[in-house]
């Protein structure tokens, strides 16, 4: 089957029920997308499919086709200059960093849909788990990214 990942078409040889996460990580060597739970609870595996945040650990590749544009953290921007990445750098958001690919992808999708999210919007939309507890800086980072995106 063919997948469109970060604007490249890949030929993928995998069982149809293989989650997108594992195809990305093990076959396309895009390891920035992380395995955290396997049941769509933690969000470490968040990618975009046609701009929408999707938890890739429960998305079977057989359900996807090459018309759907998959974006991973590696393809979010050229030179890591997406407003969310710039905001995260400015505020030194990550601690261990393991959940941050998912956190950044979830935030980027939120800002496309809602350019100026309120704190309540953030509470509703960002349900990713971070065991280091970077939430305070994530919240500041989302507001800063919203500003940077407008500018």
């Amino acid at each position, binding site marked *: 089957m063919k997948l469109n990942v970060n604007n490249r078409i890949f030929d993928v040889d995998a*069982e149809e029920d*293989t989650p997108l996460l*594992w195809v990305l990580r093990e076959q396309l060597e895009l*390891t920035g997308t992380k*395995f*955290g739970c396997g049941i769509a609870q933690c969000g470490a595996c968040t990618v975009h499919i046609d701009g929408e945040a999707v938890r890739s650990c429960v998305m079977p590749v057989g359900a996807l086709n090459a018309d759907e544009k998959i974006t991973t953290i590696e393809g979010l921007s050229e030179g*890591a200059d997406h407003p969310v990445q710039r905001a995260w750098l400015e505020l030194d958001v990550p601690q261990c960093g393991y959940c941050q690919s998912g956190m950044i992808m979830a935030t980027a999708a939120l800002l496309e849909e809602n350019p100026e999210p309120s704190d309540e919007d953030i509470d509703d939309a*960002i349900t990713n788990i971070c*065991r280091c507890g970077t939430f305070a800086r994530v919240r500041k980072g989302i507001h800063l990214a919203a500003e940077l995106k407008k500018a």
Partner: protein
Amino acid sequence: MIDLAEPQAISRRKFLVGTGATGAGLSLGFSFSSAEADSNWAQKSATPEVNAWVVIDPDDSVRIRVVKSEMGQGTLTGLAQLVVEELECDWDNVSTEYPTPGESLARNEVWGSFLTAASFGIRKSQKMVREGGAAARIMLIGAAADRWGVPAGECSVEKGVITHANTGRTLSYGEVATDAGQRTPPTEVPLRDPKDWKIAGKPIKRLDTEAKLNGSQIYGVDIKLDGMLSASIKACPVWGGTLVSFNADAANQMPGVRKIVAIDGNAVAVIADTWWRANRALEAVEIEWDLGENANTSSSDIDNVLNEGLDATEAFVGNSVGDADAAIAEAAQVVTSTYDYPYQAHATMEPMNATAIWTPENCNVWAPTQNGQGAHAAAVEAAGLKPEQVDITKVHLGGGFGRRQSNDWLRQAVLIAKELPGTPVKLIYTREEDLTQSMYHPVTKARMTAGLDENGDITGLKMRISGQSISVFSLKFLIQDDGSDPLVFQAVAPEGDFQISYGFPAVHVDHAMRNPFVRPAVWRGVNINQNTIYMESFMDELAEAAGKDPLEFRRKLMSERPRHLAVLNAVAERGKWGSPSAPGRHQGLAVSFAFGSAIAALAEVSVTDGELTVHKITAATDPVRAVNPQQIEAQVEGSFAYGLSALLYQEITVADGRIEQDNFDSYPSMTISDMPEVETVIIESGGDVEWGGVGEPTIAVAAPAVLNAIYAATGKRIRSFPLSGISLSEV
């Protein structure tokens, strides 16, 4: 008092004497691919070092050696700041690299302990690394002075450029680094007064942020080696049980499967070309277990054992001043409460994993471990090879929290790799395996008893702790001759790094050790969590019984605890004790002392229709010195998130010997909507006092401050955790 580093160092020295330190690093007979970016093995250039801590390339780039593990706590950056402060190079040229335990072995442990635990990443090695940086600076200046034929005293350095003022000549560090490395290290290495610090003590950015924003940071799970296979493992669901047999007929037919093996007599692992295929096949293996005697034990049985310990006549005494029994017997009023605290798992975001390659001649392991030398020892044992034939390449950790101090998972990875000599194999746990085969926060109960006199002053206080010792299971060197475990008394010890907050007229703290079969181990802060909940909740209960303000009630007992008192005063002032920021909000206080740092918190909560909102926590911490204030703030916030997740949601329970929680649906962790605003006051008390830690101490105060605020809001005193499932409706 409780020093984890020293016994480890002693046993390690014994080990070295016994085996002899031989041979330098190993060479690897295969090439890297994506692991290359993070592997210091591959990165090491031909540039000789200035000393063990500092390598400077001809282009003036500086590599700082760090042996402590980076797991999010910022130690990598903090230690580099301390080296660079003394080295006096340009911070913009700095990167870091991890030496390996094998190199350490070959070099007589020149970097000291790799163990990154008990909040001593910085506090226990700060002097050593600063001296390393200062010695390198002296050697670099000496090399330049010799080249010019002038006294070193006439030379100065700024940002890695050495200047001879009289002649105006300059040399960069990169130009003299090779010569400097040939020099005899100085014997006198004076250190800068912290008041003159320019790099250390400043809120500078972490060195490892950029790679964490674009997917390029390599963690253990991301290691990829040529020809590598992957493995998934399932151990006996009851700890102590064994593997009887397994039928792999169906699994062997599944795509990608290479080998299905028994591991350690208590687990089955599938090795396949991808991890996903390995794990699918593992699900198809039919396994017969002998669950062993622990299959008869459930949480209620453990509860009964701990209840018995509350009344036991024999107990280890951890802190005793005066005659608490007599003081309580003579009191006008006696208050008693019993608290309990559950098992909890670490649930690092990155599940346990390690990658190993084994041959009859050597074994190399890539592992996110908090315990480099412990990992090495575990790998040596599992590999069945000599210490000098084995090495560990550390990779960044996707969280540690104590789980990665133990190396049980690493042992399994080596045993799996041993099944396919010459082929690298990466073992990754499922989240289910990670949570059900963990080593947990220990379970304890406490009965608190105190007497109050006619004036409402405490006459004496007793604290009986009943429950588990983590040291008996995972830190045996800490167990004393009489069998007691000093770690149990964290935050209620008579003196030292875990000193009790109050100077009670009489106090008696003891421990009835009861060790259920569930494996316990360190867990961010470990015993400071529940001990501070017990003490600080009970102090509020006593203040109420005495009809006194909780702040004043505490202060009266803290006249000989100036550092404890300072942080308590700081949160009371900054958090405006007595004046909640909005109607319907209620406040709670907590203070403690852990890992050499004084910590306090003032929480503001509201409870509406039984629903709790933690609005804000004002925190204060005094770690003696602050190496990177913005990272200390991050650690305070993070520790509060970790501690509040535990308070609000987390409990590991046992049914017929099995751990019942196996993923984030049954073992929830807080998300951003639960996170309170956190304001942090950092106090640097300074002086000639051993520095305190940062990563763990503040976790102790979040939960009790919130519990005391919940009481203020509802009149409901909660003595059993977590809060989920407990009604918070007003009493």
